[in-house]
């Protein structure tokens, strides 16, 4: 599998001026990733661990207070690698939506609340497609919706008239109008009920199968990763702590944090006690020394408190933990 995106030792921090001096939030703190083409790639991690920030950096969207402190993002466009963060602004704008597109968290922000969806779709097409008539563009939008199993009648609705699940699906349709090679979807199922979640996941899988492209699916819900992703990465405190085939991660989670995430999931037919990882995640402005998970880790030992574990290969998986094997923190 060839990569579509490679991230090499990315570092991007929020630098904030406060009354008590400078505050640095290490939201992406040395992330290396290889995202292959033609897959649904999952990114898991609890809120505040830097998932959205990582997507922004992958998109090349670095606006103050977010600053780039090191590393590269490479896009494979027509067989060639482009350094996304070094591209001139104009070039990057061109790749936006045609090569890489982004569905932000909370789909409402994509739409103009006082305009019909048709206006949003037409504005989008008119600013990204040149040399076509309005009529042609409208037909393109309608055909696209139909291909995705959504009624083109939806274009006549206002955003607030749709349910959360429907609005999310329309946001996905909008982001895929120009058949991008990579779609970054930030928490598209959060705040939806299970039935609406299923409908959104169904749509995302359909799109991936049809376009044979890559969808990077961000969600903190491990059940969803199990349902649709092929490969996945687990993020903790601005770092990737585990990476591999979804199947492998679910059968032999290596990192203690991943083990908590998976073993705490409740299942119908099983009432035995399930425990979340103890404590809460560290502040990214004041990271603990050593492994960022050590204050919550029941298996932590001397070295964990002093040295930061690197992401290293263990068989086909990668893990950033000194134990480097499936040691069971939680039994189930």
């Amino acid at each position, binding site marked *: 599998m060839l990569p579509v995106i490679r991230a090499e030792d990315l570092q991007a921090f929020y630098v*904030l001026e*406060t*009354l008590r001096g400078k*505050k640095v939030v290490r939201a992406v703190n040395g992330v290396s990733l290889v995202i292959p083409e033609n897959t649904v790639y999952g990114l898991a991690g609890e809120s505040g661990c830097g998932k959205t920030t990582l997507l922004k950096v992958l998109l090349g969207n670095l606006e103050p207070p977010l600053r780039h402190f090191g590393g590269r993002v490479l896009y494979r466009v027509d067989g060639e690698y482009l350094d996304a963060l070094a591209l001139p602004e104009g070039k990057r704008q061109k790749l936006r939506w045609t090569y890489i597109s982004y569905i932000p968290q909370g789909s409402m922000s994509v739409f103009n609340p006082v305009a019909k969806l048709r206006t949003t779709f037409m504005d989008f097409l008119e600013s990204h497609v040149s040399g076509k008539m309005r009529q042609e563009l409208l037909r393109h939008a309608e055909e696209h919706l139909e291909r995705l199993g959504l009624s083109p009648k939806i274009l006549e609705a206002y955003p607030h008239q749709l349910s959360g699940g429907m609005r999310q699906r329309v946001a996905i349709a909008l982001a895929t109008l120009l058949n991008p090679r990579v779609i970054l979807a930030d928490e598209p199922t959060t705040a939806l009920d299970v039935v609406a979640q299923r409908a959104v996941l169904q749509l995302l899988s359909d799109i991936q199968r049809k376009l044979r492209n890559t969808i990077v699916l961000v969600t903190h819900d491990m059940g969803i990763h199990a349902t649709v992703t092929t490969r996945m990465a687990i993020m903790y405190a601005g770092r990737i702590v585990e990476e591999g085939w979804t199947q492998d991660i679910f059968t032999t989670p290596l990192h203690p944090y991943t083990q908590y995430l998976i073993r705490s999931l409740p299942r119908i037919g099983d009432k035995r006690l399930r425990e979340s990882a103890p404590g809460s995640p560290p*502040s990214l402005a004041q990271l603990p020394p050593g492994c960022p998970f050590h204050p919550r880790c029941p298996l932590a030992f001397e070295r964990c408190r002093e040295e930061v574990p690197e992401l290293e290969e263990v068989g086909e998986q990668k893990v950033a933990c000194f134990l480097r094997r499936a040691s069971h923190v939680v039994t189930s």
Partner: protein
Amino acid sequence: MEALRELFRDYRFAVGFVIFLFLVVLAFLSFASPYDPIRQLQVPRDRPPSRAHILGTNSKGQDVFWEATFAIRNSLIIALIAGLVSRIVAILVGFVAGYRGGTLDRVLMGLADGLLVIPLFLILVMVAMLLRGSMTLVNTGLLLAFFGWAWDARTIRSQILSLREREFTKTSVLSGNGTMSLVIREYLPFTTPLIFSTLINNIAWAIGMEIVLAILGLVRLEIPTLGTTLQWAITYQAMLLGHWWWISTPVVLTILLLVALYWLSVSVSEYLDPRMRIQRIGARS
């Protein structure tokens, strides 16, 4: 104190505050005036600024500087009465209409809309004409207050309406808070910036309106205010006769006052803006 220190970092606040303080000091100086503000021919007429009369004298035989201290004091009194009274009405009406809703809301908002759609200026002039003889400082202030609450009551009401739907309203009710404490504890922090900025704006508006009424001769002209001072200067054709010190004193003072109020209003409402406050809380951690 923390708040004041932070406000003073904003140059608009600092400058506005210094100007305003200067004007207030002027107003207080009126108590030390050697002259009666009403009596005429107390000093030689039409003298340009000099050691004895630093801003000269006017055609009525009064000292321009000492008259100005009375004028600014009286204008501030009118504006404060108008601003405070109309704020109280606006807050009461806005909170009650927004929180209670129903018929009371419709009646109160009907009243407010009534005041908003009539040509306010004409009515104000008509009422002032009727009451001409009794347009003392307090009455002028109250008259302006009567016309100054409607729009702000509406704004406050719509803010309360949206706050009422927020979840913390329910937490507060579940915590046993009654309507009064709910409104004061939960909603007031959100409405204070609005109340503050409308207070300052309303004061500025009242000062302007007083000048207009005075120029139209609709207030008691013997009481010195910024408006009546200007009115007398115009009547005696101070401009034509070259008595620039007389006419420019109220003009400069009015401009200073309005600029100071504008800057205070902008910086205070920015400081109190809930979003900014939440950000400041965030920056602490």
